[in-house]
């Protein structure tokens, strides 16, 4: 018998072990739900899985009586659009300022302290300011995501830029490169996969800021919906929505990871 630390699961047992906790959660939930419903058929706290499915089918495929929209898709579209614009703008800004600060000491001296300062401001604390300045429309929500994750992206990419080996910067100069060429031919291509990694890390916060902003002021969106139906204790909608959001977050992360492996093989395959 090998020592425990040297025992590796095979393919089948790896999957089985991975799925086991999910199955357990589902079983425990169903049992508890059944027990509560047996006592009180009108219990709202732990709706039966069939009930949740019913509600979600309604949200996804039956036009809303009030607006005539398919609510689930309308909410998903609105939220993903905000997330994409907010994260996209943040990634672009992070890339530009991160590389500029990392590569050019004169810019770093000017910008680095202020970026560090801004990154210490809790974004949720300035949400009222955003609502006052940008109104209750789309812009304020996008700005919250933007302000929430941009400082992290700038600081992370600045750090990654400064980690590019000095040897390679010197090498570029001995091959005749000017500052701009060093940025576009050496730094930018090497930072791109690191940008994807940084964006993946910041997506968790981005979702947090999105849902917070939607909860406070919105007329559609995943966060708006769960906070709206909370008033009616509609756990049959809230729970599936949370699972749906989790699935979306997982898919986004998965796609970014796959894309990075496909596009930047030299980054992922090198042995460190």
């Amino acid at each position, binding site marked *: 018998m090998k020592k425990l630390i040297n025992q590796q699961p095979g393919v089948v047992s790896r999957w089985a072990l991975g799925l086991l906790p999910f199955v357990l959660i589902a079983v425990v939930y169903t049992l508890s739900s059944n027990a509560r419903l047996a006592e009180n058929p009108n219990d709202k706290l732990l709706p039966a899985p069939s009930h949740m499915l019913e509600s979600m089918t309604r949200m996804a495929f039956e036009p809303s009586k009030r607006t005539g929209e398919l609510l689930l898709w309308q909410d998903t579209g609105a939220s993903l659009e905000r997330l994409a614009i907010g994260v996209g703008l943040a990634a672009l800004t992070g890339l530009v300022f991160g590389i500029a600060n990392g590569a050019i000491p004169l810019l770093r001296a000017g910008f680095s302290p202020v970026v560090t300062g801004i990154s210490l401001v809790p974004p949720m604390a300035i949400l009222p300011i955003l609502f006052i300045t940008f109104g209750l429309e789309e812009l304020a929500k996008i700005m919250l995501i933007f302000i929430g994750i941009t400082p992290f992206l700038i600081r992370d990419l600045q750090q990654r830029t400064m980690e590019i*080996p000095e*040897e*390679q910067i*010197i*090498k*570029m*100069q*001995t*091959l*005749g*490169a*000017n500052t*701009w*060429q060093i940025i*576009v*031919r*050496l730094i930018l*291509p*090497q930072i791109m996969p690191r940008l994807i990694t940084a964006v993946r890390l910041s997506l968790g916060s981005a979702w947090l800021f999105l849902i917070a902003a939607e909860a406070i002021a919105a007329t559609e969106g995943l966060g708006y919906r769960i906070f709206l139906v909370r008033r009616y204790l509609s756990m049959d909608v809230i729970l599936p929505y949370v699972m749906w959001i989790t699935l979306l977050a997982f898919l986004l992360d998965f796609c970014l990871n796959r894309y990075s492996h496909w596009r*930047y*093989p*030299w*980054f992922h*395959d*090198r*042995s460190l």
Partner: protein
Amino acid sequence: MAIIELKNLWKEYGSEVVLERLNARVEAGEFITIVGASGCGKTTFLKMLLGTENPTRGELLLDGKAIPEEPDATRGIVFQRYSVLPHLTAERNVMLAGELAANRYTGHAFGARRQELKASAQVMLEDVGLGHAINKYPHELSGGMQQRLALAQALIKKPRILLLDEPFGALDPGIRKDMHALVIKLWREQQLTVFMITHDLDEGFYLGTRLWVFDKDRLDPQAPGAYGARITYDLPVGKDDHGTLEDIATRVDSTARVLG
């Protein structure tokens, strides 16, 4: 006129003297191998030639003028590692110098110009024995192949001076022999001036045309930084003089023990 001239050259970091009173003239086409205890300032000297470090006293002249204070295309370099760019294939690494020259802003070449660069990169890669690895990324190449690639990448730019900082230090002995032959061949073909640091005294003794030994001729074991290293031997290579080799080996070893 000498291509490189050292006139009473000093390099100090704070109160630590690394190099002192270096004087020498190097003619174009010489191949200088530099040996010395580790920590005695060989890399520092190469950095001054490269332009990333400046002398604290004295003069370092290129063609009779102060050497530029930043790296440029006159001086090519191969480091022990990290010399090639990991995000480019072998071919693109070698094409890079030409691409940078083709367009100031994009650093890319297009059309016929690109085809030319591709063709000459392929010739260069064949020349260093990497004809079969054109489309591989550096992480897919062995250490020796990466150093060949680094040589190809540096030499296609036709620098006047080639700086090598223990370029083969991390390679197996057999592969090192091949690399020596390659460097000598390229040096002859391109009429380069070469400065090569090695920690292998034997290597220094038969490779190239001139051997420099960096050593501290005054050494205070209580304060190793009080005095700097100098060029204690400046010998033409080729005359197989076993006594001198032994003598140098003993002295460098005793310095190495003090520098630890």
